């Protein structure tokens, strides 16, 4: 009945890495048993990828445009055809023969008024076309204004030489994304958001759950150090995050036609470091909070707001006003997005992005150190 009570004297011979690995192994087993968490870890990021990938379109398309052609000449008709040939506009009806009515009714975002003697005046050297633009949406108004201007210039250039005014011709060629496929711009940005928010949320929950359910007490009652504990947890959730990254990037390749434009090393290395930083951020939040609710809110709200708004994902970093712009400098997603856009769109390689890796590594290290510092005493807080 009795078991041998010979006490182990060689306890110290166990390498610290084996404790970290056993911690990580336990986390992974626990994670895989909890079907809901597994589903959340893989399905939510995919859902977000699909929603953002398909829903966010910054390009202005299908703008309703009404035309009042008072000239009705072949020239005016070819001008109107040219306007709609851009595919940017769709025809909207003109109401009550008044250029303003269709704007007032919200049926058109812009109206073009072609004067009665348009073709004659063009032939004589110059005419004026009136363009009324709905300025409610400031951004779109500018897009409409520019694009009608562009079409008009193009139209003028296509006229017989006799009437064309002399000037400098700009020949534009689009570099990096020749088809101007917008998803190529958006989707790599989504990686920055998704691969920050979900890894940090999962690791924060994993840490807080132990505090909430009291299993942390058993850990405190052993002599495991906070660094060992957090490294073990972090390692497990880093592996989960790598799986998430593989799924998200793989699906993007299938659905949005994303292809690597350069060698894979900057992306692989950078993603690994970025995920480690995200997991460290989760551990930091988990160390600070005492309940799962706080952990989810902390990682989701802070993660979303910063990686969405202050990272250059959608809004140009240069547009962020002064004190806020300082914050954007410490947002890891800002640097990671440079890297993903390079890998999938620009393909310029190390030259433009080498600094991203040391910055991300430093940020991850600082976050991990902070988390480890908070948990340092490995005791119950009062």
């Amino acid at each position: 009945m009795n078991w041998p009570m010979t006490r182990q004297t060689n306890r110290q011979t166990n390498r610290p890495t084996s404790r970290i690995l056993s911690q990580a192994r336990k986390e992974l087993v626990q994670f895989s048993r909890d079907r809901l968490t597994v589903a959340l870890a893989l399905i939510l990021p995919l859902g977000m990828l699909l929603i953002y990938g398909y829903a966010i379109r910054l390009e202005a398309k299908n703008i309703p445009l009404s035309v009042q052609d008072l000239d009705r000449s072949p020239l005016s008709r070819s001008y109107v055809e040219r306007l709609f040939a851009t595919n940017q506009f769709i025809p909207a009806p003109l109401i009550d023969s008044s250029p303003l009515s269709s704007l007032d009714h919200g049926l058109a975002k812009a109206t073009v008024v072609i004067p009665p003697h348009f073709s004659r005046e063009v032939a004589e050297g110059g005419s004026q076309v009136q363009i009324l633009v709905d300025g409610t949406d400031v951004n779109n108004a500018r897009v409409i204004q520019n694009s009608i201007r562009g079409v008009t210039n193009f139209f003028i250039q296509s006229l017989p030489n006799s009437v064309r005014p002399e000037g400098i011709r700009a020949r534009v060629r689009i570099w990096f994304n020749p088809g101007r496929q917008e998803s190529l711009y958006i989707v790599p940005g989504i990686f920055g958001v998704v691969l920050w928010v979900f890894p940090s949320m999962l690791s924060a929950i994993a840490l807080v759950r132990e505090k909430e359910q009291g299993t942390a007490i058993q850990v405190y009652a052993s002599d495991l150090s906070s660094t060992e504990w957090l490294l073990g947890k972090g390692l497990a959730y880093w592996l989960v995050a790598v799986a998430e990254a593989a799924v998200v990037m793989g699906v993007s390749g299938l659905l949005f036609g994303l292809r690597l434009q350069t060698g894979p090393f900057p992306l692989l290395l950078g993603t690994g470091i970025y995920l480690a930083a995200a997991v460290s951020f989760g551990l930091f939040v988990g160390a600070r909070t005492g309940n799962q609710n706080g952990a989810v809110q902390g990682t989701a709200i802070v993660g979303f707001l910063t990686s969405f708004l202050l990272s250059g994902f959608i809004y140009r970093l240069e547009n962020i006003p002064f004190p806020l712009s300082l914050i954007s400098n410490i947002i890891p997603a800002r640097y990671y997005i440079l890297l993903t856009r390079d890998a999938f769109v620009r393909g310029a390689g190390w030259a433009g992005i080498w600094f991203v890796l040391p910055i991300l590594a430093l940020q991850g290290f600082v976050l991990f150190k902070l988390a480890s510092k908070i948990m340092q005493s490995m005791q119950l807080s009062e």
Partner: protein
Amino acid sequence: MVDSFLAHGTEAGGSAPSATIRVQGLHKQYGAVKALCGIDFSVSPGEIFGLIGPDGAGKTTTFQILAGVMEASSGEVSVLGQPPREARLNLGYLTQAFSLYADLSILENLRYQAGLRKVPQADFRDRATELLARMGLSQFPNRLARQLSGGMKQKLALCCALIAQPRLLLLDEPTTGVDPVSRREFWDLLAGVAADGVTVVAATPYLDEAERCNRIALIYDGKIQQIGTLAELQADLALHRIEVRADALGETEAVLQGAVSRASSALVDLQSFGDRLDILTPNVAQAKSEILQLVDQQKLAIPRLEANEPTLENVFVSHLRQQGADPIYRAFPFYRKPKALSTEAAAVAISADRLQKCFGEFQAVKDVTLAVRYGEIYGLLGANGAGKTTTIKMLCGLLPATQGGMSLAGETQNLHRAEVRSRLGYMSQKFTLYDDLTIRQNLEFYCGVYSIPQKLHREKIDWVLETCGLVGRENQMTGSLPGGWKQRVAFGASVMHEPDILFLDEPTSGVDPLARRQFWRLIRDFARQGTAVLVTTHYLEEAENCNRLAFMVAGEIVAEGSPTQIKAAQPGQLIELVTAHTQRASDLLRQQVEPWRVSIFGDRLHLVLDCPEQELGPLIQSLQGAQIEIRAQRPLPFTLEDAFIGTVQRAEEVSP
């Protein structure tokens, strides 16, 4: 002081050469709240040391400091001759919630704990196999922790604490919410662990468990009030207990209660149970004659008197009363007229006739037949999974029965109807109060649930507040109330509509003895007003409060009757043995009789024998043959717990 202990083992002389735990002047403060105000005690190697006390007395804080997971505010603590944090790898710590990972299997939980505590991989396999075999968990090493019963979880947690071969085990209420059979098994295992030289410190709300410790400390209000062996504590109380059994128990109680409140009387305290009264007195002879005299004056039937030792609960309650810890008792002001018991005495409130419930293939309840009359407290007892909760759910109409008939308040059809349900009250295991609502908001919610007319709301709520002593605190958050108070509010909420029939499902789990005693007084008041009460409980001492009891095993009722009848129906005799080698004697006896018949209580053995005249002689001879000296032996009366365990074990032997 600490320095001398660092050299423990080599130290010569001294009164306690190498105390496993030495605590001096321990203080702990959380903000403005003083949890511990100067605690001193020491525990010797190989001792089982019990810590008992009401909720919030400072037990958990003490354990957390001993385990090194919390800093003390001041005072000296030495564990195994070291500060607690340095001793962490040599101690095992078991918390109330067992600290298991629900999603990990038995083996994975063990392996993780072994990894935390630096158990070499080579040793792990042997130790795990041995521990699991010892705890009876080896058949299913891959079952997930969340699929285990409460008793099995607790054994697994013990395995986890023992995997690193600690020299000290700290157990913080390890058996709360676990059924009696598992509890007794657990303590038998602990006795074995202690015999191997591991020191055990355990806190428990179950006073019968505390009796199994070598020494007991009573902690209250952050101080240790008393410390000693059970016999020392009993002697310290200097009171004897007289059990009074009479036919007209209510009238007898009223007469004796009057005497207790008189200073000149020899009767010091009276406690009422289901079919008996307990009197505490410093002088048995004087008290007996006083009782007989009082009863004779009132022309009542002569009661049967039996003198006994005071229980640990008597010690506990008497001591706390001296400290003024006893909450003031207020009777429930009834709005309804009491039922005329004489005419309706025979009327059956709850009845079940061959009730059955199957969940798929599994038969949870088999042929349960019972009847509860108005004014009666009926207890349903059983281990986890015996079918108690299923039965109570069927009876109060929450679950349809697979087969069999039942009636509630005279109705047999459509028991789910609002008219029937409005006459029922139900309080479940977890007090169904919302922690994040105030007390008043909770009570208002239940007024709505029980469709009490709007104009009566205020009156009823004031009534509950008054009874709970919470007037003026009704806007406090319910979550901030201590367990005992919360339970009274929950009880108040479930009886606000003055039900004729009351179902209580484990109403007192995790509530300390004082609050529990108050609570039963309240239930008795209700029963006297004519309410039929059906209660399930794990807590067998408390089952003494029931008028009638039924034991359930595997979905069947195996014994029924008053507490006295059930104890009397137990075959055989309980014998207490004091031997020189308790653990060896226990191991030896367990080879000769079924293991459940032998258990260790501190330095004594309890032995249940069906025919002591024939069996005892040979057993004692075999002990003496193994050079175990027998210092004392005497017969003891069965407790309800002994009866319960005996009944359950015999039932399981018949149908394994």
